[in-house]
């Protein structure tokens, strides 16, 4: 006997009705909300898991017996690592759109500023601050970016790893933004900007050694969540924002600099998103059905360790506030704001405030 085929001329949806002909949604995961988001469709279960659909288990191990992905790569625990969703819902299209828009904005700000001769009108004392200290700070951003690049290998799900990956992408872009910006305005400034000064200060100036130490501690951690949390929950509010918002954005205008704030504030926008992503993950871990207490202890330890380092780093930055000619912002005020911000982030997460900033 033969199947009598109904000749169907079209390969388009709806050309025929048969079992499954209207099954037009990815149906192997539970969306977080009522309906699946596009981000969820692009992301969920792409990194497989033997507890879900990986029938044959991981097929390669490291020589010590650790499989391709391991839950032991962080001290935190979770009953369901797949629950997490990045708040910014980023996938490739949105990521490139956002990054590209920032690149365009930053570049046109710089171009327009240069065209109007803006950099030549910067206050002399301010130019030196940019050269030495914004120049030093760009290395901090780079160190955060490379730490996150390392961390995105270790998470147990695609959602976590992609959130860390985009965070890394933002940080590395910003480190380069600052580098190229300093190079470009240097062309318009009499006497130029010494391209090696920033790194020299980063490596040797006592003002920056606390920051460098804090960053190196993050780089050296082999717990990817310690890295991710130390960066977004601790270092960013206590040191990153303190320098970017509490110093550069406050002081620039008073020194005839209207360009640097635009370049630097892109990083504030990046941080808002990365902070939200990170806080959501911390929130999940602290409300885990089985491991909430365990996670609270572990994350608490990390926060305390890195808060100590970041707090010391922040305190060492104080002399920078007295370098510009016009002192529109005071270090104690900015530092207070940073500490408050940090304590707020901890409160949002549901974490205790460590002694050092209490």
């Amino acid at each position, binding site marked *: *006997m*033969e*199947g009598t*085929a*109904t000749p169907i001329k079209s*390969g*388009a*949806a709806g050309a025929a009705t048969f079992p*499954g*002909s209207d*099954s037009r*949604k*990815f*149906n*192997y995961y539970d969306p977080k909300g009522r309906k699946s988001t596009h981000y969820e*469709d*692009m992301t969920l279960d*792409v*990194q*497989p898991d033997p507890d*879900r659909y990986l*029938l*044959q*288990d*991981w*097929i*390669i*191990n490291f*020589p010590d017996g650790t*499989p*391709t992905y391991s839950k032991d790569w962080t001290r935190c625990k979770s009953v369901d690592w797949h629950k997490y969703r990045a708040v910014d819902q980023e*996938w*490739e299209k949105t*990521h*490139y*759109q956002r990054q*590209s828009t920032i*690149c365009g904005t*930053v570049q046109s700000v710089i171009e327009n500023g240069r*065209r109007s001769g803006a950099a030549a009108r910067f206050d002399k004392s301010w130019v030196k601050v940019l050269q030495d200290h914004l120049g030093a700070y760009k*290395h901090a951003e*780079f160190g955060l*970016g*490379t730490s996150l*690049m*390392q961390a*995105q*290998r*270790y998470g147990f799900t695609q959602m976590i790893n*992609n959130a860390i*990956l985009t965070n890394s992408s933002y940080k*590395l*872009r910003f480190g380069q933004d600052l*580098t*190229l910006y300093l*190079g470009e305005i240097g062309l318009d400034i009499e006497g130029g900007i010494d391209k090696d000064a920033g790194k020299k200060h980063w490596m040797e100036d006592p003002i920056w050694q606390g920051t460098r*130490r804090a960053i*190196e501690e993050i*780089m*050296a951690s082999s717990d990817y969540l310690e890295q991710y949390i130390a960066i977004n929950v601790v270092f960013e509010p206590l040191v990153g924002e303190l320098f970017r918002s509490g110093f550069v954005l406050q002081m620039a205008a008073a020194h005839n600099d209207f360009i640097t704030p635009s370049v630097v504030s892109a990083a504030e926008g990046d941080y808002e998103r990365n902070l939200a992503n990170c806080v959501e993950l911390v929130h999940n871990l602290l409300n885990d059905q089985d491991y909430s207490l365990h996670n609270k202890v572990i994350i608490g330890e990390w926060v305390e360790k890195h808060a100590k380092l970041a707090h010391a780093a922040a305190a060492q930055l104080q002399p920078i506030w007295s370098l510009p000619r016009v002192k529109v912002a005071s270090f104690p005020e900015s530092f207070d704001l940073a500490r408050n911000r940090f304590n707020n982030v901890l409160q949002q997460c549901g974490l205790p405030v460590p002694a050092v900033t209490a």
Partner: protein
Amino acid sequence: MSSGLTLNKITAQKGISIAEATSRVADLGWTPTYVQEAETFPTDYKISKVPRDPMKQVLRSYFPMQEEKDNRVYGALDAALRGDMFRNVEPRWVEWMKLFLAIIPFPEISAARAMAMVARLAPGEELRTGFTMQMVDEFRHSTIQMNLKKWYMENYIDPAGFDITEKAFGKCYASTIGRQFGEGFICGDAITSANVYLTVVAETAFTNTLFVAMPSEAARNGDYALPTVFLSVQSDESRHVGNGHSMLMAMINDPSNHLLLERDLKYAFWQNHTIVDAAIGTFIEYGTTNRDKNKESYVELWHRWIYEDYYRTYMLPIEKYGIKIHHDDVAAAWDRLVKKNYVHKIAQFFAVGWPVNFWRIEAQTEKDFEWFEHKYPGWYAEFGDFWKWYGRKSVPGETNMLFDQENGYVYPHRCWSCMCPCVIREDFCVGEVDGKLYTYCSEQCKWTHTVAFQAEYEGRPTPAMGRFKGQRIWEDCYHGWDLADAIKDLGFLRPDGKTITAQPHLRFDQKDMWTLDHVKGHTIQSPLVLIRDMSPADRDKHVAEYRAGFKIKPCNCGNGHHKH
């Protein structure tokens, strides 16, 4: 006013040169002095030279360039829908995309993860931007492919199979061959996996077949979406090839690396051959309806890209550094494709196992036979009857091909190394590791498991080398199961809970579709379990018989369901 003077030139400002920009960006790195970074992904290689960045790019120009590429892709997808692409698309082709697109996003994102492993190994930070771009590129590839798959699901006549895609990837008896491709990039010795296997071999040699040959065939089948996406993906690949080559050059001058490099180039080449040629070869030769005799066959493409471009142009020149290249394996792979019918036998394997797949495979027809015979003389004598049987057995109520005794097909062993079926019977072999018996598709794959992936290589300790683990033989998972129960357990059912997701035909009509009732009563057996249970004498006899091969019985059944 000189004609060369444009508004752009008048307003353009002097900037820093790209060379200056990249050198400043590379200087962002420093050697930590307070705390040392842990060596988290070790390697047995020594990298003492600073790898050079051949691409000279900064992120500021990268992101807008990539966004522009994206805009073209998404614009083309919209245009394809406006042009009613799916009315004229060939379902035979789109069905195979259910398999291809289930496999590929995981290897892609694994490549992004691999950047973590190589980025820290090399001294200096010159290549960091290259690695960063590749990391973000691979994130792009993985999610843009998920997007394409969703788009097919929403617009193609039969969405079943797309709807379970990532679940299916982890479970299917065919997608399992893509598993090494992915985990192989990110587990074990960091250079073996993230540099040699991923970049030097998979990306440099084999992405052309994936991302250039596939799109051409897609277009011949009325699919204009896949070319748009995959040519865009491929356009990132030269950057990745550049990263891989720089890393290679940073290690190659150190003779202590040569032994390991020889090992890894051999392992990676052979596995890329067994896996990529199995999958992409089948998609291109069997997933198409275009039988233009003037187009290049898969082996002709292979000769150009793998033999000429990779082997002769890329690999041979590195012999001058004192590296022994695996010449014999290149010749052997070529013979397997041309003389031993590797692709055709794999296609046969995918087809007989259709119930435990999740897409439709229809029979090849007279028109296909003619093309195959033209491109692969002798094809008809060996495979013609098989596809006639397949057509005949595509009707619900017939005995499923896997268990049908009439046609003479003998189910193959699996290879413990590459996880592909051991379809070239004469190349089949067995080996022992730690007192356990394993089966392999070839001597090269046996070597990979028994010699290469071990703690010592030719007397040299290799403490960073990975190990093969897991349930690498798919059939082991369902040994002794009834076929219907296995399908239920796999979840390869349509929403009515009884119609099977896969079908052995393209008839989009409920009355032609197989349900669980049509397949129950047959027991799946793992050839590995069976061979391990044999006495040594029986085993030798079995191996000899297996290597002798089988013959498909003549199918005196007209032309299957195809009426002329």
